[in-house]
C-alpha cells in the first residue's frame, strides 16, 4: 500500500515536473528521458559482462530505420519506432556472429570496429542514408488526443509525456527481464560462465539474447530521438556520445538497476543546470573526463554504492 502511494506520488511529480521548467529545460528533459532508456538498455548488456562500444551506433540504427520508414514508406510514426527497435535488434543478432567469437577487450575493440563500419556506411551511401548530412525533415509524431490531454508535438511537454510513457514501459520490461530466470542466467553467464555452461546453459545464445534485447531498446531510444529532433546524421551517434553513455553507466554504477539511471540524471543535471547556468558549457568534455577518472579512481562501484550505504536493508537484491 505504502509502495503504491510512493509510485503514485512519483508519477504525479513526473507529470508536474516539466511545468516548472523553461522551454530549453523542457527540451533537455526530453533528451534525459531518452538517455535513461539508452543507458538502462546498456546495463542489460553489461549484465553478461561484455562492454560494447557499438551501443550508440545501434541506437542510430533504430533512428535511421524509423526515420527512413516514415519518410520513404509513410509508416505511422509509433509503428515505425517499434520497427526501428526490432531492426536494431536484428542488426545486433547479425553482429553477434562475428562479435561473440571475442571476449573482454577483444569484444570491446571488435564492437568499436563494427560500429564504425556501420557509421561509415551511412556516410558513404548517400542514396538511402543521406551521406554525411544525414536525414533531414523527419516526420514528427502526429498529434493526437486521449480525451483529457491533447498531444501537440510542437511542445516539448507533450513529447516528454509521450516519450516518458514509452520509456517507463520499456524500463518495466527491462526490469521484468532482469528479474526473470533469463535475467538470472545473464548474471550467471557473467560471474560463473564455466559453471553455467556445465549446467547446460548455452552461453552464446544468452549473450546474443542480451545483446539483441539491449539493442532493441536502444533502437527505440534512437527512434524517439530522431522523431523529436527531426534530423539525424552519422555524427549524431559518434564515439563522443558513446563515451557519455559509458560515463553515465560507470559513474552511476552497473551493479543495480537504478545505478546507470542515477548516473545519467545526476550528470545531466550537473551538466545542464550547473555548467550552463555558470557559463562553463565549453568545459563539458573536460569535466566529464575528470568525473570519469575520479569515479573510477575513488568510487569504483559508482554512485549506487553511496545510495546502498544509506539503504542497507535492500541487501537482499
Amino acid at each position, binding site marked *: 500500500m505504502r509502495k503504491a502511494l510512493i509510485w503514485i506520488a512519483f508519477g504525479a511529480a513526473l507529470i508536474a515536473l516539466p511545468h516548472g521548467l523553461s522551454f530549453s529545460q523542457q527540451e533537455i528533459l526530453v533528451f534525459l528521458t531518452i538517455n535513461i532508456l539508452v543507458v538502462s538498455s546498456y546495463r542489460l548488456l553489461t549484465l553478461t559482462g561484455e562492454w560494447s562500444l557499438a551501443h550508440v551506433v545501434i541506437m542510430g540504427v533504430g533512428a535511421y530505420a524509423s526515420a527512413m520508414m516514415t519518410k520513404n514508406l509513410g509508416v505511422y510514426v509509433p509503428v515505425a519506432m517499434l520497427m526501428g527497435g526490432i531492426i536494431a535488434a536484428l542488426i545486433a543478432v547479425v553482429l553477434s556472429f*562475428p562479435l561473440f*567469437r571475442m571476449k573482454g577487450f577483444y569484444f570491446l*575493440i571488435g564492437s568499436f*570496429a563494427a560500429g564504425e563500419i556501420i557509421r561509415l556506411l551511412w556516410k558513404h551511401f548517400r542514396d538511402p542514408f543521406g551521406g554525411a548530412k544525414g536525414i533531414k525533415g523527419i516526420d514528427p509524431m502526429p498529434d493526437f488526443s486521449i480525451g483529457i490531454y491533447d498531444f501537440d508535438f510542437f511542445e516539448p511537454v507533450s513529447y516528454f509525456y509521450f516519450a516518458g510513457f514509452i520509456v517507463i514501459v520499456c524500463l518495466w520490461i527491462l526490469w521484468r527481464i532482469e528479474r526473470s530466470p533469463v535475467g538470472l542466467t545473464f548474471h550467471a553467464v557473467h560471474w560463473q560462465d564455466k559453471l553455467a555452461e556445465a549446467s547446460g546453459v548455452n552461453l552464446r545464445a544468452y549473450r546474443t539474447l542480451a545483446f539483441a534485447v539491449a539493442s532493441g531498446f536502444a533502437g527505440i531510444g534512437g527512434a524517439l530521438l530522431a522523431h523529436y529532433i527531426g534530423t539525424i546524421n552519422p555524427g549524431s551517434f559518434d564515439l563522443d556520445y558513446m563515451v557519455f553513455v559509458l560515463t553515465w553507466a560507470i559513474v552511476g554504477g552497473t551493479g543495480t538497476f537504478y545505478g546507470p539511471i542515477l548516473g545519467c540524471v545526476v550528470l545531466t543535471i550537473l551538466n545542464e543546470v550547473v555548467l550552463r547556468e555558470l557559463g562553463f558549457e*565549453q568545459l563539458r568534455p*573536460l569535466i566529464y573526463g*575528470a568525473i570519469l577518472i575520479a569515479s*573510477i*579512481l575513488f568510487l569504483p562501484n559508482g554512485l549506487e554504492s553511496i545510495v546502498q550505504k544509506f539503504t542497507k536493508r535492500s541487501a537482499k537484491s
Partner: protein
Amino acid sequence: MLDLLAQTGLNAVYAASYISLVAVGLVLIFGVMGVINFAHGELFMAGAYVVVAVYADMHMPFFIAVVVGLLFVGCLGLLMERALFRPLRDNPLGGLVASIGFLMILQALATMGFGVRMEFIPPVTQHVVQLGENISIPLARVYVIVAAIVLLSALWYFLKRTRFGWALRASAQDPQAAELQGISIAQTAKIAMFIGAGLAGIAGALTAPLISVNPHMGHSVIVTAFIVIIVGGVGSLEGAIIASIAYAFVHTFVTTFYGGVIADITGLSLMLIVLIVKPTGLFGSADRA
C-alpha cells in the same frame, strides 16, 4: 599508370612510418602496463599542438619544436602512469576507462587553448624531391620517414641490446617473475610510458605541418592504431611494424582508387576478419587482455 603506382607506393611508405611510430608506442604501453591506452590518438594530437605553439606561434626552429613535442608528450605519459595506471593496476577495465577520461580532458584543453578551427602551420620546407617525371615526395615527408627508421632502430637497439631494454622485455613477459629477479616494475612502467607516449608525440609533431591539426584529429589516429595492433597481434612490436606497413599500403591504395571512406571501411573490416579468424593477430602470441 606505373608512375601513379610508384607515387602511391611512396605515399604509403610515408603513411607507414608515422602509423608505425604511433602503433609501436601503443604496443609498448600495452606490453608493459597491460593497459590499452585509448588516449594515444590525443597524445599524437598533443605533439602536433606543441609544434603549433612552439614553431608556428613562437617562431622557434622546427626541430626544436619536435624535440619539445617528444619531451612534453613523454611527460604526459609519465603523468598518466602515475595518476591513472598505477592506482588502477588491479582493475583491467579501469585503466582503459581512465584513459578515455584523459582523452576527453586533453581534447577539451586543446579546444580551449587553440579553438576548434584547423591550425595553420607554415610549411617547414617547400622542397620537393623529384624521383622521376611524375614521381615526387615533399622533403617534409622524407623527414618523417627518416625519423621513423632512426627512432624504431634506436628502440630496437634499446630493447634488445641494453640492460634497461632487457628489463623492459622481461616485465612485459612476466611481471611477477621479473620483480622476483629484482627488476623494478614501477621503473620499467615509467620508461615504457615515456617512450610509448613520446613516440606518439614525435609522430604528431613531425606530421603536424603536413596534416590538418584540430582537436578531433586523434580519433582517426587511434582507429588506425587499433587496426594495426589488432592485425599485428596485441603485444608484438614486430607485428605492429609489419602491420603498419601492410595497412598503410592497403589504405593508401584503396584511398587513391576508391576513396577515403571505402578505405576506412576496408581497414576496419580487415581488423574484424583478423579478430574473428585469429584473435591473437597475425604475429602475436602474448595474451594479457
